[in-house]
């Protein structure tokens, strides 16, 4: 822990910006009901208000407060993306580590299955499956987690294969340790560093993916506040943007607020991941 604090002190400015942004988003997501001035799906005022108190970022087509929906969006969008990434990691990492450790037919079958899954673009595959399952939150999480676990599978399998050639694994095998013990006590601790960096990248990908599906109207369904669908709902307003007065300018910016929230979060995660990768690769500059 102290070494991490040390790293933190010597972290570059970009990593600090990324971390601060992540903390900001996390606080918004966790304390959304306390921070947001209005409930997420309640009509609280007239439609299409401009930016003025008490609707600091205006209201949408139904008269819901945009600021509150943005804050609750952090909770809904990021929460679902985190759940999905965690599930994808659990699936991908356990299958990948097992495939490397067991080898043989299990490895061959699971690797071929992953090859096939990766041969189709993830968005196309997800659209195909969502046609059948319909767009509910559980099916969304499951579909994206399975599709995304393929990449985690590849990485953890490759990492584990490297570790399994080490002498200490050979020694453990000769001691007669069980396969489960091998994975848990020898492979997992050594594979943790690259997997943690990958988690950040995967989260970005999953988060953008869910936002894209919501933007297409196939992700999180209304009245749940979610950034992707907020972009979709306010998209038409951009045609009315007009920089002659302050009031009309803010009007046209409506779709850019949630889209910007998405963009800034991905940039923040990328900044932090860059830094973590830099540390874990042991590079000194």
């Amino acid at each position: 822990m102290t070494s991490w604090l040390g790293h933190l002190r010597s972290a570059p400015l970009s990593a600090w910006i990324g971390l601060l942004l992540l903390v900001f988003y996390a606080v918004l997501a966790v304390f959304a009901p306390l921070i947001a001035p209005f409930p997420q799906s309640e009509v609280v005022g007239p439609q299409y208000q401009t930016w003025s108190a008490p609707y600091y970022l205006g209201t949408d087509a139904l008269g819901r407060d945009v600021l509150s929906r943005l804050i609750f969006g952090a909770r809904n969008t990021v929460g679902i993306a985190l759940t999905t990434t965690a599930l994808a990691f659990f699936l991908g990492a356990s299958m990948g580590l097992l495939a490397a450790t067991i080898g043989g037919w299990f490895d061959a079958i699971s690797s071929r299955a992953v090859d096939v899954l990766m041969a189709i673009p993830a968005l196309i595959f997800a659209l195909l499956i969502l046609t059948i399952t319909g767009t509910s939150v559980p099916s969304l999480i499951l579909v994206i987690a399975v599709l995304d676990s393929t990449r985690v599978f590849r990485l953890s399998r490759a990492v584990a294969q490297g570790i399994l050639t080490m002498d200490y694994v050979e020694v453990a095998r000769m001691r007669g340790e069980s396969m489960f013990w091998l994975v848990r006590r020898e492979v997992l601790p050594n594979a943790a560093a690259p997997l943690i960096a990958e988690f950040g990248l995967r989260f970005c990908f999953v988060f953008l993916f869910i936002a894209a599906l919501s933007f297409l109207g196939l992700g999180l369904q209304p009245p749940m506040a979610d950034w992707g669908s907020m972009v979709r709902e306010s998209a038409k307003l951009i045609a009315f943007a007009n920089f002659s007065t302050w009031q009309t300018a803010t009007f046209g910016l409506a779709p850019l607020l949630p889209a910007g929230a998405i963009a800034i979060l991905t940039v923040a995660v990328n900044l932090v991941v860059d830094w973590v990768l830099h540390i874990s690769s042991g590079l000194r500059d």
Partner: protein
Amino acid sequence: MTSVLAIILKRLGIGVVTLLVVSAIIFSAIELLPGDIATEVLGQSATPETLAAFRAQMHLDQPAVLRYLHWLGSAATGDFGISLANRRPIAELIATRAANTFFLAGYAALIAVPLAVFLGLVAAIYRETLLDKTISTTTLVAISFPEYFVAYILILIFSVQLGWFPSLGSVEPDMGLWERMHRTFLPAMTLTLIVMAHMMRMTRAAVVNLLALPYVEMAHLKGMRRWRVIAIHALPNAIAPIVNVIALNLAYLIVGVVLVEVVFVYPGLGQLLVDSVSKRDVTVVQAACLIFAATYILLNLAADIVSIVSNPRLLHPR
């Protein structure tokens, strides 16, 4: 020479098998639909005769394997069956849309590829300078941005504020090429910005790796001019990785097109796919997915084959 041929044939074989497996997966989507398709489409009040006629028309009375072969065979000749939602032939629905989509993707590729390769080369040659850092940071930011964010910013600037280009990519079949390019400029620009960043970074990485090799250093030590070293010594060896990068990104372009089409309400295949998913029109979704997936697989295959062919080590086996 024979060994290269063998490798290419093997790669082609894998490509064909992948295509077949993927098509089987796409086909099986309709099998997984809950309930009976005929009753679903025709409604509860349909008479047994109309149900039977519908089943015969859709070949639902045959076993799944036969139906798959039939579906694949007719899809190969451009006949994708009929839409479940409006019972029109799917080929009719997608013909112009697929052409529109490939036009947009091709348009974006024509702008993005030369620009990305040029910027990548410049960044690699002048690496660690301010120019390189500016290009690298901008592209990193562009990669993190979702497609629609870039698209709306472009719309705000070039369409709403400056009024240079239309914000809707509405094209008609009988439109002239110039008019069409003008109308689709903003969607093409969005796609360009998104794939270019990735392509440029990978080009830069490939060239930077090459420039670190001993023979390039030797050429420098001989006193050759910098651009001559790049053009004569480094570039021929960089072609393989760069072409690989281009093909991979064109494959990505095919997917990115779905989102961009929705933003600009462009009458393409991606828009149709999204609409059909929300209508749960499985046969249309299957057709669109098959076209997208096949293009993706073929472009990846092309990337691999180009990198095999352009690798001189394989041309002269020991």
